[in-house]
């Protein structure tokens, strides 16, 4: 239910695995690589790395936090590492719950927590260099802003 993988994500299969007769709602969030553009340059792909197994454990902790806070039947979070091309999914969160309010809130909570506590980092590889997101460290001129 919580995994860090090197392959493309199969979100359809994750949703299939969340369909349960005791739940009426499945909220899903998928983060995808967006081509950002600035001053004639653009993002060509993202590259993710993780500190494992701490990252795996933090995903599980987020799952436990969700089960404490909301009435949910199923939580599945998968994060991809390595190169993720434009439009491809880097993270997928699937929450099934008896009622939709809990499913929506929990899926949103999951992505916000991932961005706070899970030791995963992404590098934007631009046409004119790269930048580590959040650190502004890299080889682009703009990275030193």
């Amino acid at each position, binding site marked *: 239910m919580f995994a860090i993988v090197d392959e493309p994500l199969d979100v359809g299969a994750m949703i299939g695995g969340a369909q349960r007769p005791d739940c009426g709602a499945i909220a899903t969030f998928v983060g995808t690589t967006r081509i950002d553009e600035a001053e004639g340059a653009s993002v060509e792909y993202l590259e993710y790395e993780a500190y494992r197994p701490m990252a795996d454990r933090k995903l599980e902790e987020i799952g436990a936090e969700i089960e404490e806070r909301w009435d949910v039947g199923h939580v599945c979070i998968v*994060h991809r590492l390595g190169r993720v091309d434009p439009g491809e999914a880097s993270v997928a969160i699937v929450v099934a719950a008896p009622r939709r309010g809990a499913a929506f809130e929990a899926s949103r909570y999951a992505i916000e927590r991932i961005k706070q506590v899970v030791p995963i*980092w*992404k*590098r934007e590889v631009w046409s004119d260099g790269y930048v580590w997101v959040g*650190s502004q*460290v890299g080889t682009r001129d703009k990275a030193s802003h």
Partner: protein
Amino acid sequence: MIKVLLFGAAADRAGTRETEIQVDDGVTLAELWPLLAERHPGLAPMRHTLAFAVNGEYARGDAGVSSGDEVAVLPPVSGG
């Protein structure tokens, strides 16, 4: 001997993803930092942005580390 892992921008600025530092038992993370920054000067300007983990869990500067521990240098996370 303490194993130090570096990630993301920190690995980039240090020029390595892993190093080892000889310390006295009971040294704190805050005391470990100058040794690391001296060895990898590119890290120094990142200090205020970094978090640390000891044996896979977030730890503050006053956390003690001992021989055999694994310290991780964690830039601001950016998963998702």
